[in-house]
């Protein structure tokens, strides 16, 4: 079995902390051994808690309460010095906080009419090039891109055609930000749609439907020529798309895997190795996967157009930590193998994945 082999990576549970509120997102603070927990207190307010990892326990450094429950957060668009946190809340507000002075947000906008389900940032943390931007996806069916230097209006708005009924946007991710001009946003919706928006040309570059609501999308790296995209969905499935070759009609090649019966809530790539990613499941489990490229990544079809060839995915390890879904997951960008996950059993867990060097 996967657990027994001595050479396989082990998912070692390091610290567990019970919380007194519902945890929706957890993030490492870059360049530190500190992590953030974002969620909703029982009385309907939002909570941001800052913890520090001390030996075998987490020490609470700060607790910040906000009027609305917070659903998601990112450090992606902030500089390494500032380390401002961007959050989306249940009311559709996008806020950027300076955690040293959190009383008033550095940036605030009521970006959406309904809850912001997912947020991503790019252009910060010394990663990639181009303007710092934040993308939010909401239940109101729109995906909006914000520049922290521009108040009130988004720099890009992907909204339903007039008169069309909206679908819930569940997840957003930046990608392809390898120079100052290029950037794409990938969005996943509850009706199984995945749409790829090109921000340079302000157009829809690709769309597909994976037959199950899309819970999480992530590029393996935001700041390179887009290489791979993983999309996870309901019913335990995930798809890995090879994004290097786009066929005019068939789009991108993909391989899919059904890991388990329950929803796959999150996918996160290891910052230090873009071919390793972890998925978290509705059954409280974590699966560590490795993608292997095919011998030839592209081939010509009968008409001579280039089409991509998908590789294969193999399971490295899995572990069940909780009986409730693990809804959030984050790798530490600084320490290889260190990750934090938050589950709906109101527990935040810090894990260490060993033997990643040997893969």
């Amino acid at each position, binding site marked *: 079995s996967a657990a027994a082999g001595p050479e396989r990576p*082990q998912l*070692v549970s390091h610290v567990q902390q019970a919380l007194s509120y519902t945890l929706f997102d957890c993030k490492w603070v870059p360049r530190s051994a500190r992590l953030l927990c974002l969620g909703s207190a029982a009385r309907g307010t939002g909570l941001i808690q800052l913890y520090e990892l001390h030996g075998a326990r987490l020490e609470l450094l700060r607790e910040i309460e906000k009027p609305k429950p917070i659903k998601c957060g990112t450090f992606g668009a902030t500089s390494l010095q500032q380390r401002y946190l961007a959050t989306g809340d249940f009311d559709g507000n996008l806020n950027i906080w300076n955690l040293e002075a959190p009383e008033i947000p550095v*940036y605030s906008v009521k970006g959406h009419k309904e809850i912001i389900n997912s947020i991503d940032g790019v*252009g910060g943390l010394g990663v990639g090039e181009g303007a710092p931007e934040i993308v939010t996806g909401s239940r109101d069916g729109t995906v909006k891109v914000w520049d922290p230097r521009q108040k009130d209006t988004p*720099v890009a708005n992907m909204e339903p055609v007039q008169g069309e009924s909206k679908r819930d946007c569940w997840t957003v991710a930046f990608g392809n930000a390898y120079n100052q001009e290029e950037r794409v946003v990938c969005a996943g919706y509850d009706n199984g749609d995945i749409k790829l928006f090109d921000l340079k040309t*302000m157009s829809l570059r690709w769309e597909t439907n994976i037959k*199950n*609501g899309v819970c999480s999308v992530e590029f393996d790296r935001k700041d390179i020529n887009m290489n791979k995209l993983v999309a996870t969905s309901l019913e335990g499935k995930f798809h890995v798309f090879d994004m290097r070759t786009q066929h005019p009609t068939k789009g991108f090649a993909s391989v899919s895997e059904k890991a388990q019966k329950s929803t796959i809530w999150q996918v996160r790539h290891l910052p230090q190795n873009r071919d390793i990613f972890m998925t978290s499941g509705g059954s409280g489990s974590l699966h560590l996967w490795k993608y292997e490229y095919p011998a030839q990544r592209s081939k010509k079809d009968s008409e001579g157009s280039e089409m991509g060839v998908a590789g294969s995915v193999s399971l490295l390890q899995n572990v069940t930590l909780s009986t409730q879904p693990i809804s959030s997951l984050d790798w530490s960008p600084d320490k290889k*193998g260190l990750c934090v996950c938050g589950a709906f059993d109101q527990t935040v867990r810090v894990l*260490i994945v060993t033997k990643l060097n040997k893969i």
Partner: protein
Amino acid sequence: MPLWLREESWHQTPAAVYFSLPLRGARATSDCIFCSEQYLKVSIPPFLFEAVLYAPIDETNSTARIGNGNIFFTLYKKEPAMWDSLTLANADKEKLQYLRENAVLKAQEKAKEEMEAKRITKQEHKKYALEATMKLEEAERKRIEDLKEKERQKVTKELELWKKQQKDGDKYKSIPKKGELHQEIEPLKERKNEQMNKTRIPSEGASKTSLKSTKGCSSSIFSQNLMEEQLPAPRAAATIKVNFTPRVFPTALRESRVAEEEEWLHKQAEARRIINSDLSELEDLKEEEKNPDWLKDKGNKIFAMGDYLGAVNAYNLAVRLNSSLPLLYLNRAACHLKLRNLHKAIEDSSKALELLTPPVPDNETARVKAHVRRGTAFCQLELYTEGLQDYEAALKIDPRNKNIENDAEKIRQLIQGTMQSS
């Protein structure tokens, strides 16, 4: 009568008795020998040897050796004493019988005891085996746990080391940061110091208006975030219109539910179609005329008055509104009979019968009627055999109906009549 075998020479010591039994050619196996405390029997049909011993012996230790056409017995005495003779001299028939039975019983008991002992030892072996396996598994588990624990400790140590490094690094960074926060000026890296003097770009403060990307002339007390100089301007705002894969349900799409959802939609579509078709064609109908039951009653009344065509119309309309009411077809069949539309009558009766499945006591009367009407139609078409079939079916449901019986009889006569004549 068995052929008796007699023992040959016997001799004894205080502890044991030895004698041999010639077998006269018979072949002996260990099953043939039966021995108990005081009774010895060798039975090789048709030969038989029986002896009631002088004194009890220890039969578990005594032996019998078969060979050379003989059985050589070695019997160990229970009490060391010299025997007067091998067998009891005056062993009368009753004593013999008693001893025999006793012997058999004793043997059975012994067998039982042996089995019991065997069972107990087996159980103990099993228990022992189980315990051993459990211990092994426990050891294995512990080994894995220990490995994991070791990993954890190693990893924890590494983590602590790394954290220390971070902290030291952080301290260096945070000191200038804290100091400058008061003045809201951000820390500047050394290589940017040169660029500091080039241009000043007002940066975004918490409550200031949006940045103008051109080199602003108004100086600002806020920081020179020189990172921004190298950053492109905010994008020109634009909208991308999105079309979604259509989905009727507000819930998320799940593959496993698709079949259910399709079925539901299909049913809704059906219902809507019926309502719509009526609405479009029969807009001038009154409210009550859209109710199939009302129409059925109306049809019945019209039928009673003798207007068979009118009744058919009423039933037609009712069927269009609801095609799954058996009584509508039943009554229309009656109309068709009266109108001598025999084929239509058969059709409608058949349809009614179809809808009247499953055949339960509740729809008995309806089924009887259907069968009778269809039977009548068949007969009027001179298809007497089929007609008889239907009548008999009707009789089966309702055996006490005299009319049906009489009619059935009539038809039988008719059939016989035609057979005879043809």
